[in-house]
């Protein structure tokens, strides 16, 4: 089970929108049931990051992050999504 942390400024709007997109991508790539997404405010993301496999955020990467970071804004604009999708799928395959 991969633990995915999903963050935006308020933890309510864009992370909610991205949550659906990422779930869809993961399910379509055969990862259904193999991940758990937790949404939070970016201000809390660094301190929570130890317990997660990676962070997807619609903000800049926070300082003192203890897990890999994936930029999430592309999922809102639809522009240049491939690098983030590839990175997420690669992180899902890691042990």
């Amino acid at each position, binding site marked *: 089970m991969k633990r995915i942390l999903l963050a935006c400024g308020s933890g*309510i709007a864009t992370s*909610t929108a991205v949550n*659906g997109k990422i779930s869809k991508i993961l399910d379509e790539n055969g990862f259904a049931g193999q991940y758990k997404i937790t949404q939070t405010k*970016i201000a809390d993301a660094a301190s929570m990051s130890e317990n997660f496999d990676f962070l997807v955020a*619609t*903000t*800049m990467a926070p300082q003192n992050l203890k897990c890999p970071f994936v930029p999430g804004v592309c999922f809102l604009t639809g522009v240049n999504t491939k690098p983030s999708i590839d990175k997420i799928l690669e992180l899902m395959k890691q042990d």
Partner: protein
Amino acid sequence: MSELLNSMRIDDSMVIRHLNAVNDQDALDKMANLLLSKGIVKESYVSAVKEREIVYSTGLACEDMGVAIPHTDAKYVNVQAICVGILDEPVQFSHMGTPEVKVDVKIIFMLAIKEPHKQMEFLQALMDIFVQKGKLNLLLETKDEKEVVSILKEYFEDVNI
């Protein structure tokens, strides 16, 4: 999926088709005050949404054009709603996630959100409008506020998540 909009208010009184603003903060001030005048948000929303834009910018360079989705914490909101501002002349917003990048924004979607988890489908549907080529452009070609609302409602009904 018309139920998408059941708990999200949008009507022609919350569309500003000729928004004139000198910069992003001015645009936010005008839109937030419109929401305040309708009792949609608390007075504190106005400064909160403006301050939040400085810390967490919301400009998005979409395929069609630049848009912005200013919003802030649920505690400042009375009624869930979306306010649409179409700018006569674009104003610059900082891009979400990469504030050093500036975006010329033509349409602002100001969100007043109270129950985000119940709004997942609505928010995804809104993002789908941004992603699909030509959809934002149609909003610019409207002749009145009612048409803006009817196009948006149509999009939300068509959306298939």
